[in-house]
């Protein structure tokens, strides 16, 4: 890549999180976002006057707009905001917008947030809340002409063409749960065995309940500024080495060529072109796991294994003693629990954990000496993303 001037120029200097819940907290989405945002700003050592950009994702469902940057700016009393963006999930969209805005000079520091809030259609405890019964239509799109077969049908196709079995998806789920046991922010806090996994209720074949991320309430927030300014701030900074928010103009459903070359392949190639660090250099890896099968697709798209060979590779990576995946016997995968066990927040949990790991602030989950992280937020169809983070130490 001859031209990528933003490489290592933008730093993540603040992080905040409410942690995730699946009970019925009688709180607004705005309350979660505001809590995470103020934590992140305070953590950064910057003041509210310094925050010139506000970029966020908060779930959009028809008839309900979530929390947009205008609302958050007013709620937090940020006095001078001159760059804003409100995006669809996953988190990479706004992370990328904020990073490019700071680099371009549209603002010197930006707040990035991701809030997630269950509508009544997503969980029984949310449906018990009269307030949430007002939000969005019932989830009746699961059957018929508009059925959302994408990930499940991809999984079925993948099973038929690769020799993958449910046990391979189970390794992704169990790996996440092992991490979540050491993560106070995570919702799932009981160990998961392969026997339990295999007995899991089937949701959309071949995906069972443990292959689908857990609907939660919560928010994460981050503060970005220039790498130069980051060096004057109190905390260890994490540099964004490379970033990509990819797409391919083909909706990948079984039978279409996009199964071989999907948006995820575009993301991987784009990230590879912009990064001096690659899979042999990383110390911790964050494939997206909103559905377990996405992780297998990411592993192949990133070039860890040829098409169809991810199941075999997962067997190689699996440590039976530790009940988790270790790339090359060394590199942990989604050590916070991933979306499957920490909670489904469209990648913001993966970004937060990457920042904590590279700062050396991951507590019992800390990967010793972690300096480089690779992240693949998003699915393999219309929203694949890629990031390489490195510590500034």
């Amino acid at each position, binding site marked *: 890549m001859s031209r990528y001037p933003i490489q290592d120029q933008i730093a993540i200097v603040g992080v905040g999180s409410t942690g995730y819940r699946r009970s019925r907290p*009688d*709180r*607004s989405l*705005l*309350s979660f976002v*505001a*809590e995470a945002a*103020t934590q992140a700003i*305070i953590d950064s050592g910057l003041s509210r006057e310094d925050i010139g950009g506000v970029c966020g994702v908060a779930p959009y469902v028809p008839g309900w707009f979530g929390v947009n940057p205008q609302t958050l700016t*007013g*709620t*937090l*009393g940020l006095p001078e905001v001159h760059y804003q963006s409100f995006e669809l999930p996953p988190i990479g969209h706004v992370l990328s917008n904020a990073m490019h805005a700071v680099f371009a000079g549209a603002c010197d520091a930006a707040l990035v947030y991701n809030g997630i809030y269950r509508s009544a259609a997503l969980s029984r405890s949310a449906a*018990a*809340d*009269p*307030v949430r*019964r*007002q939000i969005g239509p019932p989830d009746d799109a699961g059957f018929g002409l508009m059925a959302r077969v994408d990930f499940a049908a991809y999984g079925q196709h993948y099973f038929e063409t690769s020799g993958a079995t449910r046990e391979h998806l189970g390794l992704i789920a169990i790996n996440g749960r092992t991490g979540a046991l050491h993560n106070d922010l995570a919702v799932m806090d009981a160990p998961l065995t392969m026997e339990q996994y295999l007995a899991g209720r089937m949701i959309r074949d071949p995906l069972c309940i443990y292959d689908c991320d857990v609907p939660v309430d919560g928010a994460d927030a981050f503060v970005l500024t220039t790498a130069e300014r980051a060096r004057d701030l109190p905390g260890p900074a994490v540099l964004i080495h490379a970033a990509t928010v990819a797409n391919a103009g083909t909706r990948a459903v079984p039978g279409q060529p996009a199964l071989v070359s999907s948006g995820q392949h575009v993301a991987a190639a784009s990230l590879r072109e912009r990064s001096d660090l690659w899979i042999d250099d990383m110390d911790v890896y964050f494939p997206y796991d909103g559905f377990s099968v996405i992780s297998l697709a990411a592993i192949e798209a990133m070039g860890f294994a040829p098409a169809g060979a991810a199941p075999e590779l997962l067997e190689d990576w699996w440590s039976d003693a530790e009940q988790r995946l270790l790339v090359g016997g060394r590199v942990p995968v989604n050590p916070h629990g991933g979306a499957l066990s920490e909670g489904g927040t469209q990648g913001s949990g993966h970004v937060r954990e990457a920042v904590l790991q590279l700062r050396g602030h991951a507590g019992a989950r800390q990967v010793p000496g972690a300096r480089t992280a690779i992240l693949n937020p998003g699915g393999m169809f219309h929203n694949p993303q890629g990031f390489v983070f490195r510590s500034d130490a």
Partner: protein
Amino acid sequence: MSDDELEALVSRSDGWVIDHDNKEFYAGLAAERLLVDRCRSCGRWQHPPKPICPACWSTDIGAEEVAGRGTVRLWTVYRVFDPVLGGVDPAGARIVTVDLDEQVGLRLTSKFIGSRDPAVGDRVTTRFVDRAGSRFPVFVLDDRAEAT
């Protein structure tokens, strides 16, 4: 607030969307009380309801009753469709934004009812009227102020 009370609140037909930040305010209206968010940490009032104090960022927020008296700061006349009336009020709806006496900049916007148009600087107080079966605060000229 019990689920039954919350259910009754969200199923009203007066056009407001109830959430966990504003439910105390709207529940107060049914009892003809104006319950406004106040920071328990620094004492600052704010309206509309929000889950965090914009001054000190405390999330310890509670709704407290205000007297409903204040001074008209802004006004206009709405001549648009009112879904509760099912039409346009032929006389127009006078709308005022009032600086409440409790704190400089604490503002509440509602209808103004009176025999003349409001004027910036008018002293006003709150009365409750019926709107789509719910109690609804409007501003009227403050008799006490007029008497002095």
